């Protein structure tokens, strides 16, 4: 099997699953129970939080464990909007967000908030000048995706963050779900106030994630209930998931430290091969893009057909984002980049992980080219 749909989800590390299993079995008590068994679970939770904080260069109290990217984005966006609505009701995001962010903003728009959707250029990047123009006295939140999940464009977060540091009233949320382990992000230096991460994108279990909330930022919780997670998220903690995610995060960041350049090489190898083929239009920009996502349209071949053709040889890629691939129609993100609708509708996404090897990519390219030629002869 050659699995190249890592932006949809990744295969869990065996070590993370082992942790999941052991913690489920031996740390099953509720961390809030006052007996010794609960104490052990509490210790496990505390140590997981400390390790996650160390890995991200923040304080343990700034980590809130969630169920994943969708919850993280919703909690950050709605939590800030509800908590700071006295200060202002203007919020800003971009046109190329993941559905979890985009639809959270739509919902807030219906609830009376005023939303500015920043446009992007043909590379999928927002422009700091546009943001400066959009920012007002009553702007309480800006939410931007670090690495776009469909084309891999990296946003200029450092520039934005540094400018935002001077606009004290506006909080800065970053959707880092695709970026973690692939494109470094310095939360403190970039002045980021909230940051969403999802466990299953870096070989952790599904249903896990965390939200970084800078000390001093107040969030209105989405779930009412107990006082878990510093009152930000009620509900008994998913301790096996949390521990396994933190383990995966450590392994992933350590691997990334050593092998990120290898991943870049794999991507470049694919790009170079694609560039020689006149039937392909590469949507992923050469500059400012993540090392693991390539979005490409094959002229005259429907994306869905190619996905299934590759599947016959046990190779897995996707049409746009998994979260919206069943909606049909052209991708909102590609359209926002000014890509014509018929081109956008036929795009496929190839997404790598640090686990992919050079041999896999060679084999993939071989079969990919073969399949295109076959399909072209049938369809043309």
């Amino acid at each position, binding site marked *: 099997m050659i699995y190249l749909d890592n932006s949809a989800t990744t295969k869990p590390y065996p070590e993370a699953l082992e*942790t999941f299993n*052991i913690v489920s079995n031996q740390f099953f008590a509720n961390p809030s129970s006052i007996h*010794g068994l609960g*104490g052990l679970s509490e*210790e496990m939770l505390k*140590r997981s939080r400390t390790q996650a904080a160390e890995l991200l260069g923040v304080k343990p*109290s700034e980590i809130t464990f969630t169920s994943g990217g969708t919850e993280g984005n919703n909690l950050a966006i709605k939590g800030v909007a509800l908590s700071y609505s006295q200060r202002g009701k203007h919020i800003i995001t971009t046109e190329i967000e993941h559905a979890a962010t985009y639809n959270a903003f739509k919902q807030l728009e219906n609830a009376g908030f005023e939303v500015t959707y920043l446009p992007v250029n043909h590379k999928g990047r927002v422009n700091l000048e546009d943001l400066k123009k959009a920012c007002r006295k009553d702007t309480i939140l800006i939410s931007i995706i670090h690495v776009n999940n469909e084309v891999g464009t990296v946003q200029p977060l450092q520039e934005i963050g540094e400018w935002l540091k001077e606009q004290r009233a506006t909080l800065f949320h970053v959707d880092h779900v695709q970026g973690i382990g692939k494109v*470094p992000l310095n939360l403190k230096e970039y002045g980021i106030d909230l940051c969403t991460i999802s466990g299953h994108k870096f070989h952790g279990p599904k249903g896990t994630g965390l939200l970084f909330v800078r000390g001093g930022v107040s969030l209105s919780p989405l779930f009412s209930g107990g006082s878990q997670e510093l009152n930000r998220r009620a509900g008994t903690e998913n301790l096996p998931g949390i*521990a396994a995610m933190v*383990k995966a995060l450590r392994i992933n960041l350590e691997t990334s430290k050593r092998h990120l350049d290898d991943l870049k090489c794999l991507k470049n190898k694919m790009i170079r091969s694609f560039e020689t083929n006149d039937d392909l239009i590469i949507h992923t920009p050469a500059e400012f893009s993540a090392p693991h996502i390539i979005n490409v349209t094959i002229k005259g071949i429907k994306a869905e057909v190619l996905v299934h053709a590759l599947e016959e040889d046990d190779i897995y890629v996707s049409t746009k984002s998994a979260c919206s691939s069943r909606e049909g129609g052209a991708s909102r993100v590609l359209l926002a980049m000014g890509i014509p609708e018929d081109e956008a509708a036929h795009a496929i996404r190839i997404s790598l992980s640090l686990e992919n090897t050079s041999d896999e990519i060679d084999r993939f390219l071989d079969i990919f080219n073969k399949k295109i030629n076959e399909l072209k002869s049938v369809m043309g």
Partner: protein
Amino acid sequence: MICLIYDYLIIRFGELSLKGKNKRRFIYKLDETVREKLRPFPNLKIKKHFDNIDIQLNGESYQEVAEVLTKIFGIHLIRPALKVENNIESIKEKALEIIQNEPNVRTFKISAKRKNKRFPVKSNELNHVLGGHILTNTENITVDVHHPDLDLRVEVMDHETRIYGKEYRGAGGLPVGTAGRVLLMLSGGIDSPVAGYLLLKRGVTIEAVHFHSPPYTNDRARQKVIDLAEKLQDFGGKVKLHIVPFTNVQIAIRDKMPENYSMTIMRRMMMRITEKLAEKRNALAIGTGESLGQVASQTLDSMNTINEVTNLPVLRPLLSMDKIEIMAIANRIETYDISIRPYEDCCTIFLPAAPKTKPNRKNANKFEQYLPIDDLIEEAISGVETIEIGKHNDKDFIDQLL
């Protein structure tokens, strides 16, 4: 973002430079602590000299290393430095690079020193050349010779030139382990860890004493104290923790002593036990987190009555601090969040409704005639459990899972 432009971090000692013949011992201790704390960075090369310790970074992030160093007592300043050939163009290029990489620098000055007199550009001239180069290649940065954001030091030496970036202020104080041993009474509250921190600052080695009253206080209260001791260990030295079984003492006091004196007598018992332990551990003093007048046990009358039972110096670094000042330090040294975990400790569990704020020695002694003091102390001492912080056996299992 990891910035790799620097080659060295130079540690300067500050107050320690004044200590005459003892200096060698101080530097030796500091060097030991620095090596211990920097063990997570395997590429570093650490060298100690008479006036400084220099650390060759070999690719490690200077920010991360500096952050560890800023917590170690006995360090006055930490200067990142890079080396460059004795060549004016290279010096210009690197000086500019440093300015561009330092955030929040609006003003600067150049302080060039030409130790190598064969270098063709004189110090003063070097100041002008480098200043001019930076001014023409940057925007919004100006020279301020009196209060610059960055004093860019350049040292031309025989074989290389060193350029220094923005310095970090160290924690000051004296290296831990140079001043002798103190037994710190560590309750688990907000104050005592801060007292421990301030004692460490003056170079003492700390061993913590905690009174544990199972089943009235539980393992999580105990874990809290272990976590606090571990935090204190960040500031240098090894911290040992002695856990004293205190249940029987408290029960005896509850049964035999008048309620309004129970707190005073409990403190006297703690003091006696700590003194005994200090004798065993060769400690020269007892440290507490007391702040004058903060609570009933810390009024001058209480201190006078409680202090009667020991002849050792009782060090109270928080004596004149307000709660708010203490909390600010606790936050800074990251013990606050641990201290506020809501578990019962031995002081709250049998707390009388109205403890005496003006006890006196005469009454205390009168009441204590009815208490088997020596037996209770002996029993407590014989049950002491000593934990070496950092060698957590029960925690290793969790470590493996993460």
